[in-house]
């Protein structure tokens, strides 16, 4: 792309609430993620039964992506393969790992659960849902580092590897969860913030 990429949209999910561009769009149960996820999914009124097979981390990412990418179509050549997903996470798939390990302790092992014992599966679920086939990367970090992420993603734009990117932070362990997704790409509206560490950090901390 010719002009520097812009921060097009953001979606945040935390404490039973979903925000788009800072505006609250949904509130659900705050005491149990599984109950929140089910009610948030039903509110979408989409036909996607695969959702119910997902683990909690994948559900969180699915919901955030569904809101973030609403109305956008990636399933065309030249778009699908030039859309990237770059996410960061702290606890890997530990929420599911512990559930799976408990099964193994009982002498059981469910392949349907084992498949979710990798942190990048949530990326795969989003790719499947939206038809995204470009660069996909899952980084592990103890804390969200907006500067490092922005430098990496901006580099992908600068080298013409991608035209848009879903990026951000997603973490879930037990009842502690946070998704912060944002979409970067070409944007013509002058009010759109430039894609910088400062603009991302601002969104992350509000």
């Amino acid at each position, binding site marked *: 792309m010719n002009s520097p990429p812009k921060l097009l949209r953001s979606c945040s999910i935390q404490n039973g609430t979903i925000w788009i561009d800072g505006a609250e769009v949904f509130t659900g149960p705050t005491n149990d993620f599984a109950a929140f996820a089910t009610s948030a999914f039903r509110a979408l009124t989409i036909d996607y039964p695969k959702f119910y097979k997902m683990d909690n981390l994948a559900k969180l990412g699915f919901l955030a992506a569904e809101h973030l990418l609403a109305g956008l179509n990636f399933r065309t050549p030249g778009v*699908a*393969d030039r859309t990237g*997903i770059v996410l960061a996470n*702290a*606890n*890997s798939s*530990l929420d599911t*790992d*512990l559930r*799976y*390990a408990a099964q*193994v*302790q009982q*002498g059981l*092992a*469910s*392949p349907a659960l*084992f*498949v979710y*014992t*990798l*942190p*990048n*599966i949530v*990326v*795969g*679920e989003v*790719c*499947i849902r*939206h*038809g*995204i*086939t*470009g*660069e*996909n*990367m*899952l*980084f*592990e*970090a*103890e804390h969200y*580092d907006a500067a*490092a992420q922005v*430098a*990496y993603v901006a*580099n*992908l734009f600068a*080298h013409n590897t991608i035209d848009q990117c879903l990026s951000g932070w997603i973490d879930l*362990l037990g009842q502690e969860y946070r998704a912060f997704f944002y979409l970067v790409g070409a944007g013509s509206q002058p009010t759109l913030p430039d894609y910088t560490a400062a603009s991302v950090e601002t969104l992350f901390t509000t």
Partner: protein
Amino acid sequence: MAYVAAHNIFSPLGTTSAAVFAAVAAGRSAVAEHAGIFPGDGPVWASRMPEGWMQALPELNGTFSPFELLLIASIRGATAQTALALEAERTIFVFATTKGNIGLLDENPEVSAALVAKLSLAASARAVARYFGNANTPVVVSNACTSGVAALLVAQRLLASGQYDTAVVAGADTVSRFVLSGFQAFQALSTGRCRPFSADRDGINLGEAAATIVLTAQPPAAAVATVRLASGAISNDANHISGPSRTGAELARAIGQALAAAGLTAAEVDFISAHGTATPYNDAMEASAFALSGVQTKPVHSVKGALGHTLGAAGLVESVLSVLALTEGCLLPTVGYSQPMQPTPLQIATAARPAALRVGLKTASGFGGCNGALVFARV
């Protein structure tokens, strides 16, 4: 583009790159029969570090986990004979792993905050980077079985951005009851030593190992045969979270993108170090991908029969072997290969042979639908 300045493989077949390369070239395998996973289970074939391997590192035993020790031993193996400034601010550590310390769960420990902290991939990475005196927050890539390939590509990009001069890229994974039981639940384990790209292939062997490649933005000073990481690409099938695409189209696109970025054509590829896990689906998909990208007549090898599938380390272990294939001028055999698979048989060798090699292609695919391709070239 980045230059390979140093490397190491620390594995059941040897603890130096040269030893492992010689073993693989000679057709040796570390895949052996081991006790079953659950009481009453039949044996499991896997490539495991020899009993007591940690005793060789007495000063570290007790401070670090087996997973962290594998990383440390490999990084030290790669860098001990070099003048590389590991503690420099312009040196970044990039790690690749799928499960890190997950083996700790095999002992059924009580779940506590302390255990959660020990299971953190980023925390293990930080401990290893600090051991080598580097204060930068390390980068940790966890992209299933493409992690090793992805980490090398990430490192190359970090060097190209001008932020760093040197990237120490290290990956490891261990064989644990956690992971073995999962692949067994998938019925993905072979009943013996795995048979990559063979008509009678029936599944994988798991393996544990660590590997390191040090990349530099500038070519090494010494006038020795040098290999550069010319380019790479990552894609996603967007099809299924555990099964590969039936067409191989997205892996083919990653291969094409990587070659184009390196300014090379399919014809210029001299060999392919494939993912070749020996599952019915993976090997068929890869063969399709090779055909789609025009490299199906090139010599192909898989080392999964020699070292098993080392998950997060695989892309790095196999890239080191690709680097040596280029510098030694030697095409590697595929241990375990039996009969050509149909309908798309590949050019697989059962014995090593010398050849003038200039360009090597490394491919990988993983759960979550990810694919990766790297192009290595002799300078």
